[in-house]
Every structure is written in structure tokens, then in C-alpha cells.
């Protein structure tokens, strides 16, 4: 599995907010993608958009709610089309499946189109360990592969890199003259990868959707690398999470409307490719073998918890990232694993272990912008609350990892607030405690514990002599008589 650095969220996010280049990249990307998304919604009208969202959500509810049935139907129909389905309980198993295909077929070169699940598995390293040359072919993925980094966005993996950095990288790693002209850089990638596509024995893709009715894998792309990966090599391996299955081919229509618009504001992407089994005998070209690897790797934990199940409806459009005020400021890498942003803050803790990702559910203001943007109406804030509850109060001590200080504060706060008399006493004590740092009714910079974290950048009003309750008792209570 890919390396997990979720424990470092606080430090990583602190470094990120201080990096003006990252702030620019993620802030403007957010605004750019999100503006395009809003324009696309206005074009179809918000009313129609709501109908689509509702329809998509119903499909996902049904599909995920009967997932075993549709996976079985899918498996049958992939087999009927001449392909093979392999099931993997975890990352190791998934990697072993692909390794076995590589070993028995003598694969030397593999090209990959974008697959977040393969990032999750850390598949490239495993294949490289077997002597396979693996080439990422999505331009963004190619860049981060050359840079030996990880994606920072679900849709635009190299969002964190400037054109200058990419130009330097290409010059260093590909031996081309330095040019930060973006068209020229795209041309360089085209030339570098064109021959790889034709040399590759194996093409690896993800899947945006799997159609149970027909055994079809669907990928939604813009560059054409996905088409090449699924068409040129003699073996095609699709790797995907088990939640991607939808019942009928007709269900695709609404998702093809929602996904591109939510991701990039496009009415449709340049390409949608639908793969049903390997090439037929009479076909001109296409892979001789089609393998579909369906991965659990922790997803059944999300499935099992009714409060978290809807996270499996996600279509990975990235809209919640683009609109998230936290993601816009800390970027993708701070989240410490493959899936960043609001949806990542739900999925990551369950997939890598709640105890080592406890910052993620907390690092949100619960502003709800993600829920509003989600094309399948996933209620992300509610799931963040659920995870916070697990961290604070789960009967399972592995999951209950909120700090003792937090628990103590919570109990203290509840105790005081439960007794108006105690609140009065606390108020007096509080006024005394801040008296020395109060000027003109305001508390400025303070070194008091807790308070200092607020007052580093903001003043705080000191509690005035009378609370509202006092004023009511003294003056207002007689007003209506």
C-alpha cells in the first residue's frame, strides 16, 4: 500500500500554508475549476442539476446497497465477454494478482492511464520490483512520476507544480532543452510516451464506472492516453474499487452528465471509452486479454457502517476539493495519503486506520460547501461529525483516540453549562483570570494556555460586567407586561 503520512497533518499543513506558490496553485485551481462547475450548472439550470443529483444518488444507493448482487452480475458478464475478474481483499492481494499476470505473461513494459486505486495500492513500486518498466501516461501523473511525488488532486495530480518546475524536471529527466512553454512541454510528453504505448505489453487503467448489466468498464478522459492504454497493448488490466459498479448501461447517462461538469465544468470530456472484454476475433485491434481487478482494501469497513456508507457513492470528481476552504489553503499532500480534501477526510481514516488519521476529520470548519458541491449529494460534514464521535467516544479503544485534554475539557464544559449557578461562578473566575490582559474591554495577545492560540491573530472581548441573563433579569424581563 502507498505510504501513509496522515499523522503529520499539522506540520505538513503548517508548511503548506506558508508556501505562497502552493497557496496560489490550489487557491486559483479551486476557483478555476469551481467557477467552471458553477457555469455548467447555470447552463443546465439548477433545477435540472438537482434532478440529476437526486437520480445519481438513487442509483448509487441502490447499487451500493446491493453491491454483492451487482458485483456477481458484473463478474458473470465480464466472463461472458471473454474477460476475467479477480477479487482482492487488500492491497497486497491486488498487487499479487497483477504481479502474477505480469509474471506468467512475460510483461516487460506497462503503460498506465490514471488510476487512484493503483496509487492507493502502490502498484508501480511492486511492478518495478519485478523488473517491469511502468510508465504513467496521463500528463499530470507522468510529471509526478518523473518527480517521484504523489498526486495532490484527484483530477489534476500535478496541480502543485509550476510550469517552471515541470520544465526543469523535463530538462533533467528527459534530456530535452529547458522550455517552460506549456504546449512544448505537452509535445515533449507526447513524443516521449508515443513509443511506450506501442512497445507496452500491458495497459493498466482505472475505472470510473463498471456496468453490471454488460460487464463494461468505463473510463472518462481528455488526453487520449486512456484510449491508448486500453487499445494498444496485448493485455489490459483494469484496477478499481468495488464500489464503482452501477446496475444498467442506461444509468451511465446521468453520471456522464454529472462527472465532467463537476470535475472541470466540461459538458463531456474529449473521450469516454467503454471496454467490454478483450478484442473479439474479428476486431482489427485491442487487447487479447482483459483482466478486471476489484479491490476491497478497507472499503467494506465503510460499507458496514451505515453512517459512512454513502462515502462509497463518490465518483472522484474533485468538486469537494475545489470548493473546500481548507484544501484550497493546504493543498493535497498535507492530507498524507492518496485521497485528499473533504472526501479524503472520510475515506482515508477508514482505509488507513482511524487512529493514525485523527486530524483529518477534525481539520474542517464543517462549513458544508462540499456537501453542496457534491454531484451525488454526499453529506460529508455529517460523516466528519460521525468520525469525530468515534474518535471521542467509540467503545473500541483502537478508535477512541481523542486526547485526554479534549475529553477533560468537554466534561468540564458540559458540567459548567449544565448548572447556571456554576456558570455564574465560572464567569466571575474567568473575568478575574483575564483581568490582567484586558485593555479597553479587549483581550489582546495572551500567553494563557488555550487563549494564546486564539489571541495570536485575533483580539477577544473580555466578558462584560453583566451577562445577557443579568440584563434580562434586571431590565428586560418586565418589557412585555
Amino acid at each position: 500500500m502507498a505510504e501513509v503520512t496522515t499523522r503529520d497533518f499539522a506540520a505538513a499543513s503548517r508548511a503548506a500554508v506558508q508556501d505562497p506558490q502552493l497557496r496560489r496553485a490550489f487557491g486559483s485551481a479551486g476557483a478555476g475549476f469551481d467557477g467552471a462547475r458553477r457555469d455548467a450548472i447555470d447552463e443546465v439550470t439548477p433545477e435540472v442539476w438537482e434532478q440529476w443529483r437526486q437520480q445519481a444518488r438513487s442509483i448509487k444507493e441502490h447499487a451500493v446497497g446491493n453491491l454483492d448482487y451487482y458485483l456477481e452480475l458484473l463478474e458473470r458478464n465480464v466472463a461472458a465477454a471473454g474477460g476475467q475478474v479477480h477479487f482482492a481483499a487488500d492491497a497486497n492481494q491486488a498487487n499479487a494478482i497483477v504481479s502474477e499476470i505480469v509474471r506468467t505473461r512475460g510483461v516487460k513494459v506497462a503503460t498506465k492511464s490514471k488510476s487512484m486505486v493503483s496509487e492507493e495500492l502502490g502498484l508501480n513500486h511492486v511492478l518495478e520490483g519485478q523488473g517491469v518498466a511502468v510508465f504513467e501516461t496521463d500528463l499530470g501523473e507522468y510529471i509526478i512520476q518523473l518527480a517521484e511525488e504523489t498526486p495532490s488532486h484527484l483530477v489534476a495530480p500535478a496541480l502543485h507544480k509550476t510550469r517552471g518546475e515541470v520544465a526543469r524536471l523535463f530538462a533533467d529527466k528527459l534530456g530535452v532543452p529547458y522550455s517552460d512553454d506549456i504546449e512544448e512541454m505537452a509535445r515533449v510528453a507526447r513524443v516521449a510516451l508515443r513509443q511506450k504505448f506501442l512497445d507496452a505489453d500491458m495497459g493498466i487503467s482505472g475505472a470510473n464506472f463498471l456496468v453490471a448489466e454488460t460487464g463494461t468498464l468505463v473510463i472518462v478522459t481528455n488526453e487520449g492516453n486512456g484510449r491508448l492504454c486500453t487499445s494498444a497493448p496485448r493485455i489490459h488490466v483494469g484496477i478499481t474499487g468495488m464500489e464503482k459498479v452501477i446496475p444498467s448501461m442506461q444509468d451511465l447517462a446521468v453520471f456522464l452528465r454529472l462527472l465532467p461538469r463537476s470535475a472541470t465544468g466540461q459538458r463531456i470530456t474529449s473521450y469516454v471509452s467503454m471496454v467490454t472484454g478483450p478484442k473479439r476475433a474479428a476486431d482489427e485491434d485491442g487487447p487479447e486479454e482483459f483482466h478486471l481487478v476489484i479491490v476491497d482494501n478497507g472499503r467494506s469497513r465503510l460499507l458496514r457502517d451505515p453512517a459512512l456508507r454513502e462515502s462509497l457513492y463518490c465518483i472522484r470528481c474533485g468538486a469537494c476539493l475545489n470548493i473546500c476552504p481548507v484544501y484550497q489553503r493546504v493543498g493535497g499532500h498535507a492530507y498524507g495519503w492518496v485521497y485528499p480534501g473533504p472526501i479524503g477526510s472520510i475515506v482515508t481514516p477508514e482505509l488507513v486506520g482511524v487512529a493514525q488519521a485523527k486530524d483529518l476529520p477534525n481539520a474542517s470548519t464543517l462549513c458544508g460547501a462540499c456537501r453542496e458541491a457534491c454531484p451525488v449529494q454526499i453529506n460529508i460534514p455529517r460523516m466528519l461529525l460521525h468520525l469525530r464521535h468515534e474518535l471521542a467516544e467509540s467503545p473500541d479503544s483502537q478508535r477512541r483516540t481523542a486526547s485526554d485534554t479534549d475529553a477533560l475539557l468537554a466534561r468540564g464544559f458540559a458540567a459548567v453549562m449544565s448548572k447556571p449557578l456554576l456558570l455564574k461562578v465560572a464567569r466571575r473566575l474567568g473575568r478575574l483570570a483575564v483581568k490582567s490582559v484586558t485593555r479597553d474591554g479587549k483581550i489582546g495577545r495572551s500567553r494563557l494556555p488555550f487563549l494564546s492560540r486564539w489571541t495570536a491573530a485575533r483580539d477577544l472581548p473580555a466578558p462584560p460586567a453583566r451577562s445577557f441573563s443579568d440584563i434580562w433579569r434586571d431590565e428586560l424581563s418586565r418589557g412585555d407586561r
Partner: protein
Amino acid sequence: MTEPAPRRASLFITCIIDQLYPDVGVSVVRALRRRGVMVDFPAGQTCCGQPLYNAGFTAEAKRLAVRVLDAFDDCERMVVPSGSCGAMIRVFYQDLFADEPELLRRAAALSERVYEFTELLTEVDGAADAAAPSDDAAQSDAGADVAAVAYHPSCHLLREMGVRRGPLDLLEAASGVSVVDLPDAEQCCGFGGAFAVKYPHISEQMLADKVEAILQSGAATVTACDMGCLMHIGGAISRRGLPVRARHIAQVLDDPAG
């Protein structure tokens, strides 16, 4: 046929207003009474429990929520001058008590009667407008000092309570107020309760951007329906000594010049 105007409301003051901003509460009461609404203030109320609920401590949150139910079970209408606390009571109490049928029933019943402050004003004014043109709307701003006001829609009010237009309509109809556009108005200010002190480096960035937007708007006053957000925004304005005031919408409506 419009509903008759609400005549009676029980005030839940919120702990921030009670402890730190009592003047806001006074403005709330005055604004309602001026419209002929009888206001009472049920005894024994403290906090709705949201800080605890948001931190995941539901057992403690329930202790406080039950106190709110006890105090407001019998009220005709509950008015809350906060979208955040209003959302807690209207929306999240039902999640909190999902497994406790009796409390869930009480929470569901109360949720029907919870009004955020501007929701109640809108309903009162709407009923009044239907009966006779409002004096306020007929008043001219000529000669009066007009305050340039930027409205920050707080997140829970906007997205949990679904209040989008109402506060702006109230501000636009008020004499002595000129509403200016706030860029990226619907972006969170970065308060988020404990978030502000748990992740101050992120919160402060969001806050700085919000303050920048307020400065760009040219407003002399920034207003909102939540003192949490305004404590946060106003705290930064005060620290930087900027010529902008942060005031609750009840204060602006009660006394625009302040």
C-alpha cells in the same frame, strides 16, 4: 392568505451572546418587541451543546441538549440569534437523539418551531407587509447617515438552515443601511469553533482572506447572523486596527448608525 403574524417568541440567547455580547441580545429583544412580538426568556438555559457535538462528545452534548428541550418544549416559537445554534437545534438534535425515541420525538417537535432571528423577522414583516405597507420601507434614507454594510452569510445558516436571501432582504429594506457586495461571500470565515484554536494556521489564512474581502467591499460594517463568526472576524479587525465594525444583524437593524 398569509399566516397571522407571530405574536410570541421564546428567546434562546446562545452562550457567546450571553457571556460576551449581551448588547446583541438586547438588540434582538428590542427588534422583536418593536414589531409587536412578545419575547420571553426561559430560565435555566445555557448552551445548545454544539461545541461538544462538533467535537464528537455526544454524551456531553446530550446533557446540554436535554436542558434546551426541557426549557423550550412548551414554547410557541423558539427564536435563536445564530444560524449555528439554530442548525444544531433544528437539524442536529435529531441526529443526536436518533436512537432515543422519546427525546427524538421532542427534538423533532421543537425543530418545527425553531426560528433563526432573521427567519422570524422575515415572517413577521411578511405578514405585516401583507396587511399594510411597512413604515420602514416607506422611509427615505435622505438626510440620514447611511452605513455601508457587508453581509457575511454564516455557513450553518446558509447550508444547514437554508437561509440565503432573508437577511439581505431585511438589510436592504432597512433605512440607514446600504448593502455592499462582499466578494466570495459564501466562503467560510475560518472560525469553525474549536477549529480556530486547533488549526490556527489554517483558520488564520481563511480569516485573512475574509477580512481582505471585507476591505475590498468598502463596507464600514460587516454583519452576520452569528456572533461566533463575528467574534472571529471582529477579532482580526480589532487586532489590525481596521476602520470596520463587526456587528450582529440585530444590532444593525436595531440601530444602523450604532
